């Protein structure tokens, strides 16, 4: 597989050199320490050991190369990421094509884009209920500064008017409902227009295995420093994967208990987000967002999940030990990058101390059980091209809360990147 990728890279380097392509390089080296937690999902670090993860120090070196050029009015861009890592006491290497797309202006107003790319149709920073074309976001790096996000494979046709645009997109994407990966194909439409100083987008998404999704998002500014935005989407039925324990008494399951059991529900499930971005004096950036998803577990459902975990725990010392262990691993998939429960508050502050030093802090608070993830980050610019950073995550909460039971308790990362 790697040889294939290297061949593709080589094929595109040559014309790139001949036609004077723009090159960009980005290197990232990081060391990180993960501390796993003894929780109802990971008793005595048992789940983590089965998965082969270890508490301790790991390291990764990433080399990102970006190349873009225009050949006979056909523009193309390729982003390649090479990774060399030492994780869980094993060396690993990998080459991944993060973006590789062609773009052609079919007329003065019509643009065709095809290939793998990262699009973004949402207006939210941490969550995007309407963004049906974007790859999954990473909470620690929503802007993809580390360039680790892989684009979706798509064909996009967009008409640009003077004050509006209309886009049609057909894409294949990795869906991450409840942390279970599945490849999906879908088509999406977006109509954008600026009305009364508000950027408005109407979005719809069609998937032959799901009911259509309808969404609207907006963003605008008020005064000199205040930006506000919102997103709303609705869909008949829920395609979220739920643990069967929300409907059944605790027991050991013989097959994966996570299922999209509410896909045929008659009522509509809504997701919405409201937030603002405020620039304080001295360029301090403050972002706050509230996010709700009907699809998430309610407090009562979460309690049922925890009862199930307690039950599994009680069976770990019984003759059904192996079955209990597998049930533990299945349960880990409840945790999702989209959040497992219904209501969240996101807060981000970036303080530029001086030209070389900035401090950032991110907090995601589960409003139902008041558990939270806190991420603190420090960036120091060294010379013109190097940035040293330190970042740590703390997952905190009472017992039987979402982040209090998360299988990691602490994560610390230091690294250096060059661009």
């Amino acid at each position: 597989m790697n040889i294939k990728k290297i061949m593709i890279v080589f094929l595109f380097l040559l014309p790139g050199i001949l036609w004077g392509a723009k090159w960009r390089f980005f290197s990232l080296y990081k060391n990180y320490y993960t501390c796993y937690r003894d929780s109802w999902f990971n008793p005595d670090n048992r789940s983590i050991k089965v998965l082969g993860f270890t508490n301790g120090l790991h390291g990764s070196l990433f080399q990102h190369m970006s190349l873009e050029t225009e050949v006979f009015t056909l523009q193309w861009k390729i982003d390649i990421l090479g990774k060399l890592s030492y994780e869980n006491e094993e060396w690993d290497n990998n080459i991944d094509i993060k973006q590789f797309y062609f773009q052609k202006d079919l007329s003065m107003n019509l643009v065709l884009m095809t290939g793998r790319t990262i699009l973004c149709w949402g207006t939210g920073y941490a969550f995007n209920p309407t963004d049906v074309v974007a790859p999954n976001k990473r909470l620690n790096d929503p802007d993809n500064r580390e360039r680790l996000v892989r684009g979706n494979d798509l064909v996009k046709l967009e008409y640009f008017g003077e004050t509006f645009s209309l886009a049609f997109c057909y894409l294949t994407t990795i869906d991450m409902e409840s942390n279970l990966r599945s490849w999906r194909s879908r088509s999406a439409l977006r109509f954008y227009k600026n009305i009364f100083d508000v950027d408005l987008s109407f979005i719809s998404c069609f998937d032959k295995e799901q009911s259509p999704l309808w969404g609207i998002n907006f963003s605008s500014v008020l005064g000199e420093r205040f930006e506000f935005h919102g997103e709303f989407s609705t869909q008949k039925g829920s395609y979220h994967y739920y643990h069967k324990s929300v409907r059944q008494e605790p027991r050991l399951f013989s097959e994966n208990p996570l299922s999209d059991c509410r896909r045929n529900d008659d009522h509509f499930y809504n997701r919405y987000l409201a937030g603002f971005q405020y620039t304080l004096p001295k360029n301090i950036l403050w972002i706050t967002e509230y996010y709700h998803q009907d699809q998430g577990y309610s407090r009562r459902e979460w309690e049922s999940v925890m009862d199930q975990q307690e039950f599994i725990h009680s069976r770990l010392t019984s003759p059904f030990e192996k079955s209990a262990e597998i049930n533990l691993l299945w349960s880990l998939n409840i945790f999702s990058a989209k959040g497992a429960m219904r209501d969240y508050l996101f807060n981000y502050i970036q303080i530029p101390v001086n030209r070389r030093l900035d401090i950032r802090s991110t907090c995601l608070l589960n409003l139902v059980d008041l558990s939270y993830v806190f991420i603190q980050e420090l960036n120091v610019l060294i010379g013109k091209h190097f940035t040293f950073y330190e970042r740590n995550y703390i997952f905190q909460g009472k017992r039987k809360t979402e982040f209090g039971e998360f299988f990691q308790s602490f994560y610390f990362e230091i690294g250096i990147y060059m661009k």
Partner: protein
Amino acid sequence: MIKKMILCSLFLPGLMYAGQDEEQDILLRIDRYRVPYEQFLIRTQITTYEGNKIKESALFDAYIKGEDKSLIIEKEGKNKNMKILYVDEKMWVQLPGSRRPIRITPIQRLMGQASNGDVAKVGFVSDYSVVSLDTVRLEDQTCYKLLLKAKWTSSTYNKIILFVLKENCQPVKAEFFLISGKHFKTAEYVQFGLFQGKLLLEKMIIYDELRTDRKTVFEYTVIKEKELPVRYYNKNYLIHVQGL
């Protein structure tokens, strides 16, 4: 007597309108030093100084279209490839690597004492109206002193006091004020040069009113007619902009 007064009152609006016409004409003549074509490219080297020491430097290309549209690309500097779009008093920025343009305001700082609006908007006519016009002496030169008031709340500055040479309307100095009435910064138009046969502003220095040791120098190195298709001025096209 009454007849004369009635006659005068009939002419008064006309006379006032003629006055406004003259003021507008002066503003148009001032803009000719900065807006030579309907659509054009203006390349600006911005350097910020603290005392005599260079603090930061960057190169920007601004593609101006009419009075209400411009696309700015940072060609060299800390945020290389950053794009700023200005359309009908609205502004968006697309940071390098980011896939999402975000809304910003013209007054937000670009670098040093330069605001986004200082690069995106080069003329006065579309954004400001003349409130008063006087003739004054400034550094041994006879100048017009114009008090400009913003037409829109989204204009970069609320009020500008502009000094231009009476003989040819060449700008000399401008004082910029915020809505709060605060004297924000002062610009000196220090050098003019020929660009494709047109006499245009070549160098401008902006001084910080609070930190007098700080200044930002704008040097216009290229000004030429250039037309971009209308899609370049659509917010959603920002991610597609390549090859400029």
